[in-house]
């Protein structure tokens, strides 16, 4: 019903774009959720900051100024406009470090999501198509991974691999992967029972084609939502690992690491912990809001005509 009305509505108005663009339709649903739109704009803002970090940051993030350690933000007595958000115990500019920190967060989010999603989607596809015994083996392994608290598992993995940002990313990707496996497998199983898959089989399609051309494109909506949500998870987990000293190593201006370095100064200088913490909070909140909007817009079950 919805299909018919939407196509008849758009065809007469605009002959050039007779097809109601999928993106346009998506945006119509997405925009209904105000929180999601705000989240989206905040996300874009952080993305721009991350991309242009060297141009925007007034100082080099690791250059130290012994003359100005623990300078408070400009609105407090003793603060000045040279260091708008103050400096840390080593005299490094907080604002520049936060701006550069955005780069690491996005790097982490992107790399972790790509790693986890690629591995998870492939494994999930295999599990969905596989005979029952192989499916059972794969899913039980995933259940085992899921049953261990994710941060603990990541900690163990980092302890084995050695503490560095790259290893933290790998560890978190492994921890997040089972969610993709489950999601993909469930989506594949619903799609497999549909007639278009059978007709592709009757046409002689072989397994790789069935997997990637026929079924996978129809499973993407929930996976995209999961990707958005695990992006924020990855940022949060890497910050947590950094805070525990198992992620990015100083002097990297990673937000979690910044928190950990400044921990002992919490009482004397509130700004050294508050700003990185706020940065993490706002980014993660924005991405989660955006993910919710994505789900509303992409999940056909929540669609109103």
């Amino acid at each position, binding site marked *: 019903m919805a*299909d*018919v009305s939407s*196509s008849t509505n758009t065809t007469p108005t605009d002959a050039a774009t007779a*097809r109601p663009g999928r993106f346009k339709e998506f945006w119509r649903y997405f925009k209904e959720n105000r929180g999601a739109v705000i989240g989206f704009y905040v996300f874009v803002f952080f993305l721009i900051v991350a991309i242009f970090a060297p141009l925007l940051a007034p100082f080099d993030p690791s250059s130290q100024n012994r003359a100005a350690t623990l300078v408070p933000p400009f609105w407090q007595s003793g603060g000045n406009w040279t260091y708008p958000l103050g400096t840390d115990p080593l005299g490094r500019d907080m604002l520049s470090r936060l701006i550069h920190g955005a780069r690491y967060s996005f790097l982490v989010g992107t790399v972790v999501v790509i790693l986890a999603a690629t591995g998870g989607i492939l494994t999930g596809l295999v599990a969905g198509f596989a005979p029952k015994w192989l499916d059972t083996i794969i899913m039980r392994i995933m259940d085992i991974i899921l049953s261990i608290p994710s941060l603990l598992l990541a900690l163990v993995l980092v302890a084995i691999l050695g503490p560095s940002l790259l290893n933290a990313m790998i560890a978190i990707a492994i921890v997040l992967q089972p969610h993709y496996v489950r999601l993909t497998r469930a989506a594949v199983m619903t799609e497999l029972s*549909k*007639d*278009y898959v*059978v*007709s*592709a*089989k*009757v*046409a*002689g*399609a*072989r397994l790789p*084609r069935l997997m990637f051309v*026929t079924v996978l*494109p*129809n499973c993407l909506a929930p996976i995209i939502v999961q990707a958005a949500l695990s992006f924020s998870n990855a940022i949060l987990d890497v910050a947590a690992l950094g805070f525990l000293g198992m992620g990015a190593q100083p002097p990297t201006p990673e937000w979690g690491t910044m928190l950990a370095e400044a921990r002992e100064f919490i009482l004397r200088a509130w700004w050294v912990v508050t700003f990185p913490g706020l940065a993490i909070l706002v980014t993660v909140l924005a991405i989660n809001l955006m993910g919710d909007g994505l789900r509303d817009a992409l999940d056909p079950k929540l669609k109103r005509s």
Partner: protein
Amino acid sequence: MNAVVSAEGLARHYEVGGGLFSKPGVVKALSEATFQIEAGKTLAVVGESGCGKSTLARLVTLIEEPTAGSLNIDGIEATPDNWDRLRSHVQIVFQDPYGSLNLRHRIGAILEEPLKINRPDMPAKERQAKAREMLELVGLRPEHFDRFPHMFSGGQRQRIAVARALMLEPKLLVLDEPVSALDLSIQSQVLNLLLDLQERLDLAYLFISHDLSVVRHVADDVAVMYLGRPVEFGTKEQVFSNPRHPYTKALLSATPSTEPNPDKMRIKLEGELPSPLAVPDGCPFAPRCWKAKTKCREQRPELMGEHPAACWYPEG
């Protein structure tokens, strides 16, 4: 005349359940199906839900392997080794036009897919030309080529499904309740399209349906199935005007008629379809039959004769 497809004692059994301590049960979804279809002819298979019609369709379209019996398509024995060779001989049209098209692909891509898989050396241009030609053949407009399935109505989608099935120039088309999801006015359009195509391309149809008025319109021969077994075979005239098996008679009496006829007796079947896990000995229809005798409950009747009906005491 050479038969396009001939089946001999085709059967398909499924094992179900069976835990650690229980033996798996066997569902005999289809047993002893024997039939032939010639080019340009239609064999209609009728029966209530769960009688094995769709299992038959899955066997004939080479989706599943039969448990027993043999299937010949175009003179080639349909064993799994030959399946690839036979793909282009048999195609299928499904009941639900909403589930049978991939929503993420354009109509053009849907139509070209069978060619892409089976004729990989065909140039892309030729493939597209063929797809456009087929689109016209089933009565759709050229601008539909680049659209997505969700922009079409049920009837149009079913036309697309027919076009896709014909892309490989098959000799046999399995129609698994092709019109039962469509509304009445569209049903006749699609049926007429199918009949028209059959005449033009000399296709053999295996037409699966539970709608007897549709069957009367399209069939040449009719097979009536009950609980996984064919119980009556015959030409359309034989089956419709002179049903021999009591089940066929009951089915026919349940078809609504356009003529008011107060004398017509509607035979109401008592009882439930027996579970396919425990098919009774003897005639499977005996528990619901109004003329069942002791012999019916003990021995299973076979299909025999000119107009065969698996019944000890056939009508007429």
